[in-house]
């Protein structure tokens, strides 16, 4: 889609103003109903679009992303703009700097139409934890769009933006991509700079593209990757994902994890996965069954390590330097600095945020650190080593994204553990720091609605190209 739009802009079949205006109109039409955007930048978007049109009229060269509307998850800082992380504690926070990925896409001439809704601080799998109300799934408004990048997923699915950026710590790009019927990719940890992404779990977080097509994901990925001196977990690996994109799977070895197929997986999802494997086999790929007994600990590793990192990262929200401060409220009860911390955080954080901070504090506390956090770290290394051994046998792993179809709004909100179990197939890629991509396949009918299904591919470290290529084949085979 991005390339087609780029050609149309170059050939003056449409203007960037017309294109951007069309997407802004869609936002006006659907946003109140679906609650996708927390902020819309109508005026700036149209000004930028006009600037692109002037460039085109002068015959100047356009970057492939130039003049094309996109959306950003609202945990990505944009200088001078409100960045809330969907939390009351940052409801009026204006970012004093931009994330590196934001600088990169603006340099390419992208038009940011606004900031999308998310689970508060990206803690969640449904976008129901937002302090500003849940986002609804464009395929069925009674259902969740997935989370935590649910706003970005819904924006692309409902054509409010051509593409979007999300963040993925335990599946937060791939799950909403799956529930919204679009493509979503989590790169290898270290591929994309996290500078300017409001940190959730610093050894898990990655920013990635959410797009209509696999090719679009490759184009956006090209724009955002690269070493950044402001994030020393990034490295440079020169590559052009778009240029090297193909759908050749002949001779590829695709693994299927035995343990993922044993549990309670919706029958339709299991059938679809098996169909996709069959199609890949018919195209010349070889399917290998993999036994990964330690993978059953991935969820435990995740839910012990991530809250621990969260408890540390969210200590900065203390009502002192920025954000909601109880001390500045009329009728403040704060008598001392400790009161400011405790009361600001009580007022500013939602339940899930409080829950995870307290869980993380517990896992890091004296007497429990060895049994929980340190043990989880060790198991993480074991799981990484297991994947390293597996990837000597296969080129990629095909797996489900979610154990169920998109669930109804409110269905899991009273049971945090049930919500955490939604991540069962996505967290392994984050635990092992591997790249993974969700791609839609077919639609199925459920309760009178047509809902998207999809699969994910997990690749070797730094082999985003490999999984993009296989994902392209799946896309071609299914014509979603």
């Amino acid at each position, binding site marked *: 889609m991005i390339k087609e739009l780029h050609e149309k802009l170059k050939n003056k079949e449409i203007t960037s103003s017309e294109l951007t205006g069309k997407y802004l109109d869609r936002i006006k039409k659907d946003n109140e109903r679906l609650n996708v955007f927390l902020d819309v930048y109508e005026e700036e978007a149209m000004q930028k679009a006009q600037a692109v049109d002037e460039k085109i009229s002068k015959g100047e060269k356009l970057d492939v992303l130039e003049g094309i509307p996109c959306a950003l998850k609202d945990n990505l800082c944009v*200088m*001078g703009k409100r960045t809330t992380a969907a939390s009351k504690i940052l409801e009026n*926070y*204006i*970012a*004093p700097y931009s994330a590196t990925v934001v600088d990169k896409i603006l340099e390419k001439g992208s038009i940011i139409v606004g900031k999308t809704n998310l689970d508060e601080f990206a803690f969640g799998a449904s976008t129901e934890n937002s302090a500003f109300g849940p986002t609804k799934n464009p395929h069925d408004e009674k259902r969740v769009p997935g989370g935590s990048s649910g706003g970005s997923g819904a924006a692309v699915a409902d054509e409010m933006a051509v593409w979007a950026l999300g963040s993925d710590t335990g599946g937060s790009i791939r799950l909403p991509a799956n529930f919204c019927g679009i493509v979503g990719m989590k790169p*290898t940890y*270290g591929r994309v700079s996290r500078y300017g992404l409001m940190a959730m779990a610093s050894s898990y977080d990655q920013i990635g593209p959410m797009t209509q097509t696999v090719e679009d994901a490759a184009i956006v990925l090209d724009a955002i990757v690269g*070493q950044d*001196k402001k994030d*020393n977990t990034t*490295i440079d690996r020169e590559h052009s994902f778009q240029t090297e994109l193909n759908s050749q799977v002949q001779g590829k070895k695709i693994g299927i994890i035995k343990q993922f197929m044993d549990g309670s997986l919706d029958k339709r999802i299991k059938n679809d996965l098996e169909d996709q494997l069959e199609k890949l086999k018919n195209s010349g790929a070889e399917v290998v069954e993999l036994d990964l007994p330690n993978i059953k*600990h991935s*969820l*435990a*590793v995740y*839910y*012990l390590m991530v809250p621990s990192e969260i408890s540390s990262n969210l*200590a900065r929200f*203390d009502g*002192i*330097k*920025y954000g*909601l*401060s109880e*001390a*500045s409220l009329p009728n403040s009860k*704060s008598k*001392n*600095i400790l*009161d*400011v*911390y*405790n*009361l600001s*955080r*009580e007022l500013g*954080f939602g*339940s899930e945020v*409080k829950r995870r*901070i*307290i*869980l993380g504090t*517990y896992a890091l*506390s004296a007497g429990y650190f060895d*049994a*929980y956090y340190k*043990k*989880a770290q*060790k*198991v993480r290394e*074991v799981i*990484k080593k297991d994947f*390293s051994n597996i990837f000597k046998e296969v080129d990629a792993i095909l797996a489900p994204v979610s154990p169920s179809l998109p669930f109804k709004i409110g269905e899991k909100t009273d049971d*945090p*553990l049930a919500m*955490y179990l939604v991540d069962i197939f996505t967290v392994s890629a984050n635990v092992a*720091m591997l790249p993974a991509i969700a791609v839609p396949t077919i639609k199925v009918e459920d309760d009178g609605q047509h809902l998207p299904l999809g699969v994910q591919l997990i690749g070797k*470290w*730094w082999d985003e190209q490999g999984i993009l290529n296989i994902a392209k084949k799946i896309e071609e085979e299914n014509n979603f």
Partner: protein
Amino acid sequence: MAELARINLQPEEEEKFAQEIGSVLDHFKDISQLELGSVENFDHYDLKENHTREDLFEENKETEKAAIKHNFPQEKGECLSVKAVL
């Protein structure tokens, strides 16, 4: 734990979170019983050089200073105002 986490909780929240967090920890308790011994660190990076930036002083631009000050919950003149620590 809430006190350590610097979050004030209402009594009903304390009870609810204790139950919920207990349930989560119970579900994941097997991991604390795993016998692993010493585990080697697995690094996917293949780093050949340090990637940290140089420790150089840089003056904030006026626009950055203004943006930072804009977010101060309470100010006194040019300064951030906070309750006394001691």
